[in-house]
């Protein structure tokens, strides 16, 4: 590998925080004109490594070479000057500026601080067109949908003529359809000679797009290999340091009577005439493209938004759920999609998070019973093997998977008869994913009805008994898993028939 081909060469990178060694002696290099995937469990150091590369965290020790020359990056601006661009997993744009201004954020064209708006809009139009995104560059960014915003984020990185582009879970809010479009863009960029660093939990995507793959574990680099000749199973075992055989355990449970039935529900905006029922002991999958209205259905059932039509029945009785407290009383629980945003109260400890929905039951005359509070947390910490097993620890000090377990525990404490899980395993590492699937399996075995929203088709097919596919705010009838394949679901989700 000569320097000329080597876009990025990081040697002996170590990054310590007070009391923590986040990266130790990592070597990592990427060639121009290739896609290099980085995989690893949560907390393996991927994000830290990318922040070093992005200039957000100056490394404690080690050298970085970009295009052969040794560089020092202390701020994101330094990295950008070197042609390193980052596409974040969370959308990190300015909602109050226009699309064009976002695409050129931090480097708007102009002279003497005077903005050349027309030039900027023209250039942004060209870039967006090249990416195949039909977005008006004059539109206020905040008015776009999430997936459109994700495309603007990618356009922003692309418009900067980067030499190296880093994508952190770029497909997390894209549907399979849009993911495919993104991949064709990435291939084009690669062919233009750009070095692409691709971070993802979705190993299938990695196999599809990457030329090389680097596995990180516990802050150290485990291995870099060409993509040919590596399998998903091998990657997983490198990531977790052990073999994981059954990723999607499906424990059979006796299926009983319908617990939750919705009939022709609409919210007047995102979905219309949606009907399905979830039976005791059953996992009903709800899938479809992002924006098809899945999360909105869940939020409306849980009372976070209002229904404009249709009926919701619980155990056969018609129920009006106007707020989350109504939902809790009715026996519905909801584990939201955005864990950090909607799931946890970061400044509170695990115990306080778990007891939040049922505080009133734990209270007498307004006073929280300390003993009951502790007992509840202790119970779930041990049942779900939340690590570290300490209910008094602040929840944001836990790993993503353990946070998610605590969020699920929070809802089980409310003893619901229906559990709605919205993307329960997104952003969770492989080991924790299996544990979460195990927990769900136990719950249905005990007779709970589970409605699970997921975009990951192998997961949907592996875990769910029946599947509802949504498209454009409409839902299909529940389909039996045995009659489904990934191709069939995609066909229903996109409305395109498979050849």
């Amino acid at each position, binding site marked *: 590998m000569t320097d000329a081909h080597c876009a990025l060469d990081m040697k002996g990178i170590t990054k310590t925080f007070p009391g923590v060694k986040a990266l130790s002696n990592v070597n990592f290099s990427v060639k121009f004109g290739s896609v290099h995937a980085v995989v690893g469990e949560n907390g393996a150091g991927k994000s830290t490594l990318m922040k070093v590369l*992005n200039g*957000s965290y100056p490394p404690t020790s080690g050298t970085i070479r970009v295009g052969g020359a040794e560089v020092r990056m202390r*701020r*994101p*601006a330094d990295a*950008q*000057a070197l042609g390193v661009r*980052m596409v*974040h997993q969370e959308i*990190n*744009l*300015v*909602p*109050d*500026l226009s699309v064009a*201004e976002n695409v050129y*954020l*931090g*480097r*708007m064209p*102009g002279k003497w*601080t*005077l*903005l050349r*708006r027309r030039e900027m809009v023209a250039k942004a139009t060209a870039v967006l067109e090249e990416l*195949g*995104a*039909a*977005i008006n560059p004059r539109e206020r960014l*905040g*008015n*776009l*949908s999430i*997936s*459109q915003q994700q*495309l603007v984020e990618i356009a*922003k990185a692309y418009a900067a003529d980067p030499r190296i582009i880093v994508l952190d879970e770029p497909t997390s809010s894209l549907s*399979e*359809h*849009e993911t*495919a*479009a*993104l991949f*064709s863009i990435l291939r084009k960029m690669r062919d233009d000679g750009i070095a692409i660093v691709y971070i993802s939990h979705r190993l299938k995507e990695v196999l599809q797009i990457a030329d090389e793959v680097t596995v990180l574990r516990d802050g150290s680099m485990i291995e870099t290999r060409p993509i040919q000749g590596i399998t998903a199973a091998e990657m997983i075992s490198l990531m977790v340091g052990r073999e994981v055989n059954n990723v999607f355990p499906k424990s059979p449970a006796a299926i009983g009577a319908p617990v939750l039935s919705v009939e022709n529900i609409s919210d007047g*905006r*995102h979905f219309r005439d949606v009907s399905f029922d979830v039976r005791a002991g059953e996992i009903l999958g709800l899938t479809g493209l*992002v*924006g*098809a*209205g899945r999360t909105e259905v869940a939020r409306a059932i849980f009372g976070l938004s209002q229904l404009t039509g249709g009926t919701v029945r619980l155990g056969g009785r018609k129920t009006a759920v106007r707020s989350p407290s109504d939902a809790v009383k009715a026996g519905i629980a909801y584990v939201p999609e955005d864990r950090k945003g909607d799931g946890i109260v970061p400044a509170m400890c695990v115990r306080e998070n778990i007891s939040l929905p049922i505080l009133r039951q734990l209270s007498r005359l307004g006073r929280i019973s300390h003993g009951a509070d502790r007992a509840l947390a202790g119970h779930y910490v041990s049942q779900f093997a939340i690590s570290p097993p300490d209910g008094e620890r602040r929840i944001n000090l836990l790993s993503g998977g353990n946070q998610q377990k605590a969020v699920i525990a929070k809802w089980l404490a409310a003893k619901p008869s229906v559990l709605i899980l919205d993307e329960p395993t997104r952003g969770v590492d492989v080991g924790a994913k299996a544990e979460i699937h195990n927990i769900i399996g136990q719950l249905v075995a005990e007779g709970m009805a589970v409605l699970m929203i997921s975009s990951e088709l192998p997961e949907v097919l592996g875990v769910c008994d029946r599947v509802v596919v949504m498209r*454009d*705010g409409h839902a299909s009838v529940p389909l039996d898993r045995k009659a489904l394949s*990934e*191709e069939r679901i*995609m*066909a229903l989700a*996109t409305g*395109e028939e498979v050849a």
Partner: protein
Amino acid sequence: MRYVSLALQYRVGIILGLTLIVSAMLVPGYVSATTLSLGLDRAATIGLIAIGLTVLLIAGQIDLSAGSVFALAGIVSIMLQPQLGILPAAAAGVVVGMVAGAINGALVVGLKVHSLVLTLATMLIFRSIAHWITDSQPVTGTDIMFSLALAQIYLDVFTVRSALFVAFILLLHFWLTRTIPGRNVFAVGSNAVAAEESGIASGRILFFGFVFAGTLAGLAGVLQSLVTNTGSPVFGSTLIVTVIAAVVVGGTRIEGGKGSALGTLGGVLTIGALTVAMEFQSVPAYVQQVVSGFILILLVVLDRTVNTRRKAAADRPAFVQGNPIKQGGSA
């Protein structure tokens, strides 16, 4: 429906227009060049401070200390007159405002603390200094004739102050909409992290935002002191509430990211027009308070309604606004 949302968007203009029309009909002597020029002169003090505060609010910050800076800068510009002469002393006063703004900015950016608390503290500090250096007595300038000249009305409409205010507001409008730093202020106020990661030095922008706000508060204070030939430690003690109200009535969002110079102009003029109209009718001060408080709340609630409506539109799935991806294969 479209008219409703259009009306909501230009609500400041509509309220201003309504105020003017109703006042013109009910208040005798309201429509005249004198009223206009004097009303404008009155609005200028609030307006100059509002210009600085508009930038700060857009950047997501607030400055409660402006009233104290107003007093302090005025005092310095008067106290230094015997040593420096009137104009250099005035310049020194503006510099004091600038320095005060720099102190605010450095502390907010350096300590990373909420500007509400920080400027509450510096409000106390600057006010204390004003009392300290004057021994709590008003100080008098050397030349009353200069004050009288400064208060003259030119071209039948403008005083030096109101001309400066109008000029600055137009400059601000241009700066906020047509320059790169101006747009970056919006970026920082709307999403500071994104701005920072895009290479915008948000700390520097905030710092200069405070310096700018301090300078303008200083300028307003110096002009006030020159016009009245007095520097007083009690000047401007209730000013900031009116200024915040004017800026917010003008549609600038207090959480940052949204606002405009012309909106602020509208807000300042609305409050000015309303005050003059009510004073012309000798409406008791407490009734005036109720009216201005009510308008403030009304406009902010309207603003929330507009935003909720917009947000609802943004929540719409991609397909409603047209398929975002033209090409690309399916599974």
